[in-house]
C-alpha cells in the first residue's frame, strides 16, 4: 500500500526546492517513516536546522520547526531541549553546515551526550551556494573553489561524532532507502546523543563537476562504495579498500544524558538551599 507521507507534510509545501535527483527528499521520506514508527506527536516534535539545502527540510514537516542560522542548529536545539527535555528534538542539515561552520557546536553537542538526534545529509559539497568544496569533499575532487582538485582532506563525520562523545553513531546512504528510517528509529530510541550520517548525492553541483553522467550513476556510486558493518567483518583489508562502512557504527549504553544530569544539578542545588 502506498505510504501516506502527506500526514507529516505541511499542506501546499510540495514540490520541494531540491534539484532533480537530490537525495534529500529520500532522507525526508525516511524521516517521516521513522516519526511514524516512533509514534511521534507533531506538537511534541521539534526539528532544528541551520542553513543550506538540507536545512530547508523542516519547512516541509508539520511539527515545531526551527530553521536557524548557518551552523547553529545544534546550539539552538540545545536550548530547546534544555528548556523542554520532554520534547523530541531532531537536528537536520548538511555536512558544511553541521561540521564546518557548525563544527564547534556539533562536537560539543556530542560531548554533552544530550538526548537528541542529529541527521547529517552529507553530499560532500556546499550546494546552495553553487558547489564550493566542504569539509567532507574528498581530496582531489572538483568543486567551484577547487578547480585544480581539492587539496583538503575530508572529515569522517561519523568518526568525528564518535570521537567527540556521541553515544550512538550510524551511517546510511540515500541509495539504501529502506535503511534510513530504521537507523533514525534506532538513533532516536537511544537515550543520549545520536548522530546519523546519510551519504547523499548532489547531482547539480558535485556530480557534473566530478564526471558522474547521471543521477543514477551517483546513486550507484553510493551503493558500490559502501559496505554494511556486518559484511565488512568478513572482508579482507584489500576488499575494504576505498569502502565506507554503513549501519550502526557505535553504540555506548549506560552513559547518562545531559538533561538527566542537569535535573540532578537542580536536585543538588535545591537540597543545598534547604
Amino acid at each position, binding site marked *: 500500500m502506498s505510504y501516506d507521507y502527506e500526514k507529516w507534510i505541511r499542506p501546499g509545501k510540495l514540490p520541494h526546492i531540491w534539484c532533480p535527483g537530490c537525495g534529500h527528499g529520500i532522507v525526508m521520506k525516511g524521516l517521516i517513516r521513522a516519526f511514524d514508527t516512533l509514534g511521534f506527536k507533531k506538537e511534541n516534535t521539534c526539528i532544528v536546522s541551520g542553513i543550506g539545502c538540507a536545512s530547508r527540510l523542516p519547512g516541509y514537516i508539520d511539527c*515545531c520547526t526551527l*530553521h536557524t542560522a548557518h551552523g547553529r542548529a545544534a546550539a539552538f536545539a*540545545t*536550548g530547546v531541549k534544555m528548556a*523542554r527535555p520532554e520534547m523530541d528534538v531532531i537536528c537536520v542539515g548538511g555536512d558544511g553546515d553541521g561540521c564546518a561552520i557548525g563544527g*564547534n557546536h556539533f562536537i560539543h553537542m556530542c560531548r554533552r551526550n544530550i538526548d537528541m538526534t542529529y541527521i547529517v545529509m552529507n553530499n560532500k559539497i556546499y550546494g546552495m551556494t553553487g558547489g564550493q568544496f566542504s569539509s567532507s569533499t574528498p581530496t582531489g575532487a572538483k568543486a567551484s573553489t577547487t578547480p585544480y582538485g581539492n587539496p583538503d582532506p575530508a572529515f569522517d563525520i561519523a568518526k568525528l561524532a564518535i570521537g567527540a562523545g556521541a553515544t550512538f553513531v550510524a551511517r546510511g546512504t540515500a541509495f539504501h532507502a529502506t535503511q534510513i528510517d530504521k537507523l533514525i528509529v534506532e538513533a532516536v530510541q537511544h537515550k543520549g546523543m545520536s548522530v546519523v550520517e546519510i551519504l547523499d548525492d548532489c547531482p547539480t553541483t558535485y556530480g557534473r563537476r566530478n564526471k558522474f553522467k547521471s543521477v543514477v550513476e551517483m546513486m550507484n556510486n553510493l551503493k558500490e562504495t559502501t559496505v554494511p558493518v556486518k559484511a565488512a567483518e568478513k572482508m579482507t583489508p584489500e576488499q575494504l579498500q576505498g569502502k565506507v562502512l554503513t549501519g550502526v557504527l557505535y553504540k555506548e549504553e549506560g552513559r547518562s544524558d545531559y538533561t538527566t544530569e542537569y535535573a540532578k544539578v537542580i536536585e543538588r*542545588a535545591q537540597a543545598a538551599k534547604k
Partner: protein
Amino acid sequence: MSKKVAFLQGNEAAAHGAIYAGCTFFAGYPITPSTEIAEVCSVELPKVGGKFIQMEDEIGAMSAVLGASLAGAKALTATSGPGLSLKQEIIGYGCIAEIPVVIIDIMRGGPSTGMPTGPSQSDIMAAKWGTHGDHPAICLVPASVQEIFDETVRAFNLAEKYRTPVMVMPDEIVGHMRERIVFPEPGEIPVIDRTAPSVPPEKYKPYDTSFGDIPPLAAFGSGYKFHVTGLNKMEDGFPTTKAPIVQAEEERQVRKVEANKADIMKWEEYMVDDAEIVVVAFGSTSRSARFAVNAAREQGIKAGLFRLITFWPFPEERMLEISKKVKAFITPEMNLGQCNGVVRGCIEGNAPVYGIYHVDGEPVNPEEILKKMKEVK
C-alpha cells in the same frame, strides 16, 4: 517587614534581577568583565528550577538562549565586547524571528581583545548597528548596582512585551562596583510575560498582526506547532521574497520599538530646566557628571545633567527641545564620541556638542567635566 538589603556587585545584581523577572534559562561563555553574571546564574538558577549551561562559544550561547526562549523560557545571556561581536549575527536572528531574550553586555575596551579589564562605553553603536540589516534596537544603560537590578527586570519586561531581543549595557565600572541594593518584594516591580496566543493551535500564525504590531508568541512544546526562520517571512512564519510583504514586515519590526518609544525610553533630568550647559551622560560617566554639575552650580555655572537610562531608542525629540534653550552640550564618554554623534544628529545644529573622550581605561573624572564647562561657558 523590612526589605532584604545586600551589598552586591553590579554583575551579581544583574543575575538576581534576571531571576526576579522570571528568567529560567542562562547560556553563556566566560568573558571578562561579565563572567560573574554567569557564575551567579549557575548558583541561583537551579535553586529555582531554572537551567544554566556554559556553551562552547559566544555564538552557541546566543543560539541556545533563542532556542530556549522559543520553547517558552525567559532566557538570558551575558557577555562583553568581543563576545558581543560574535553574537551579533544571532542577535539579528532574534530580531527578525521576533524572539524575546535579554543580552547583558558589560562594556570593556575594544576593538578586538582591547583592554579586557578596562572600562569602556564603546559598544553603544554596536547595540544598534552591530548586526547587519535594519532591525529594532532596545538598549538600557544603568548607572548603579540598584539600577542594574531594576533595568534587568525592565529589560525582560520589554523583551517579552515587544517580542524582541533587549540589551542591557553597563560599563565595566558599574558592572564591577559594589553598592547597597534593596531587593524589591515579589510583585513590587510588575513582571510582564509574552502574550500567549488567544487562538487554538490550528489557527495560530506566529506573525499574525491582526491584533497589532506585536504578534502573540506560542511556545514550542505547548501544543502549538509552527515554523520559525531567519529568512524574511510571512505571517505564517514561512519564507517569502514577495516585495510588499518583506517591506511591510521589516517596517513593522522596527515600528514595534519606534511607535512605542515613550514606553521604552527612560532618562533622568538633573537641573536641566534652567541649565545653559547640559551634560549628556550614561553609566558610570553620569556619576562623574552629576558630581561636576553640583560643583559647577556651586561656582555659579548653570549646568545640568541629562542622564540616559535607555540609550536606544534615543530620546531625540527631548534632546531637540533642550537644544533650543541651552548654550552647549557636553558628552563625557568612554569612547571616541559615539554618544556625541547621536546628540549632534538630533539637535539640528542648535548648540555645539563638546566631547570628553576616554579610551585609555580611565574613567572620565568630574574635574575634567568641570574644566570643560568652564571652557565652553
